[in-house]
């Protein structure tokens, strides 16, 4: 007859002695929450950076009657006659080097105005030229830009974005503060709950600790066995929670993608397809998410080490 005998290396079969589903489930829930908060905070940070950085650097210039060729435009010698829009674009060359100047073409303009004008291509309305100017980081447009342009091409409107950029920056800052606060709160609570779940799971094992101690097990052996067991449980819970959080997280990022476009030209109303999504998630977010189960495992392991050793200190 084959005799049942567990020749385990760990010698204690603590996995059977310590079935602890509640720790696993609690850690999974906490990791789920932490993953979502981490994502929210990352999103908030990206959005806030775009708002406060991007808006200040962006000028929008409108030129009415763009295709009109001014009379005394000093182009008597030139064979090519410059339109009002061309003149404005020429004048913008005086801006700091590195400035991007882009005149929206007909399709882009139609796309931009579609929500207000419907099919702008067939519209009889006289459309102005819209010129996007993106200044390099750290530079500002000269305050006299509008005057200078108006002197050459009267009726040119420069939208500085300055006013709503400062509002946006304030909004971005408060968004960032909220995200940081939420992250700190959820992180702290998750760590605390994990530690408490570990503790309550362990308190029902106190008699086992006492038995092992009585049989002549060393402190580091007992603490190590229990800690690696709870560490593994917490890692599993953390992994499950993080993986479960990926679904709502991917959904959120897909919805947010249109707002993350870098300029008016690349902005599309459409959401990106699912298969391009992994590239949309920021690398630091992915690293943070991958770290969650490790952090959960460490909290479980550390709490167990501390608690078991404290209990053992009460015995000679």
């Amino acid at each position, binding site marked *: 007859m084959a005799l049942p005998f*567990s020749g385990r290396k760990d010698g*204690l079969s603590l996995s059977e002695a310590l079935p602890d589903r509640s720790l696993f489930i609690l850690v999974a829930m906490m990791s789920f929450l932490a993953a979502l908060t981490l994502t929210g905070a990352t999103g908030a940070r990206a959005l806030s950076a775009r708002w406060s950085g991007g808006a200040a650097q962006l000028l929008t210039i409108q030129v009415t009657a763009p295709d009109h060729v001014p009379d005394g435009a000093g182009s008597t010698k030139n064979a090519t006659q410059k339109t009002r829009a061309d003149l404005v674009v020429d004048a913008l060359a005086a801006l700091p080097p590195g400035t991007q100047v882009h005149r929206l073409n007909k399709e882009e303009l139609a796309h931009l105005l579609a929500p207000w004008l419907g099919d702008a291509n067939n519209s009889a309305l006289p459309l102005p030229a819209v010129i996007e100017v993106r200044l390099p980081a750290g530079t500002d447009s000269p305050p006299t830009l509008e005057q200078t342009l108006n002197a050459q091409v009267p009726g040119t409107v420069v939208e500085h974005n300055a006013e709503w950029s400062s509002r946006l920056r304030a909004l971005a800052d408060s968004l960032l503060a909220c995200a940081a606060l939420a992250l700190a709160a959820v992180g702290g609570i998750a760590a605390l709950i994990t530690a408490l779940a570990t503790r309550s799971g362990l308190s029902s094992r106190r008699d086992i600790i006492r*038995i*092992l101690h009585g049989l002549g097990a060393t402190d580091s052996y007992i603490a190590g066995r229990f800690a690696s067991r709870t560490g593994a449980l917490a890692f599993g819970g953390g992994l499950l929670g993080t993986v479960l959080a990926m679904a709502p997280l991917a959904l959120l990022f897909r919805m947010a993608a249109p707002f993350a476009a870098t300029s008016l030209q690349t902005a599309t109303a459409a959401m990106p397809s699912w298969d391009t999504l992994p590239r949309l998630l920021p690398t630091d977010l992915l690293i943070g998410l991958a770290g969650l189960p490790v952090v959960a495992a460490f909290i479980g392991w550390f709490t167990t080490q501390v608690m078991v050793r404290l209990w053992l200190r009460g015995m000679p």
Partner: protein
Amino acid sequence: MIRLKNVFWQRARKQEKPVLSDLSFSVPQGGFRWLLGPSGAGKTSLLNLLHIESLPARGDLEILGKPVSADTPRATLVRLRQRIGMVHQNYRLMPGLSVVDNVALPLRLQHRPEDEIHDEVHAILKWVGLGERIGVPAANLSGGEQQRTAIARAIVHRPGLILADEPTNALEEPQAHKLLDLFDELSTMGTTVLVATHNEALIRRLPRPSLYLERGRLVREGE
């Protein structure tokens, strides 16, 4: 060998009345002693103290020839405990572990090779009559089976000191006699043995020197 000199012990530090008062006695290596006394006399407390589950409040204690006090290094106490086999009144088995794994614990904690553990454990379980129950979790055993598992665990690693707290009260008479005869044989081979009991018939059958406790004091010592 164990030696006590004016040993006092109390449960909590603030408690006024000590559970064990002014105990002085010694048992030589290979000695067998019955530990007697009415319920509440302190037999369990004394055995637990000798198992180094706590330290004396006062007095000198020596176990297996080594002084045991608050100054004794933890590692020394751990090694001492590994050389003691204790049968607790309430068995103290690991409920989730099977009979074999429970009995194998003292050997595994000493990092013995698994094949050696296998042989030792099976031999002893057969001897205590649990050869057919080895895979059963301790939680599913009857009282008598738990007691026999606890006895097997206490002797499997050939300890130098056996402490048994009413080790046969859940057993049939023949089983009880068989086990006490084993304890007696082990003592003639050099193991020091202390057995706490209420059972007068057992003592009459195996007359050995006794320690008689009453209200925490040693009131009689001898045959």
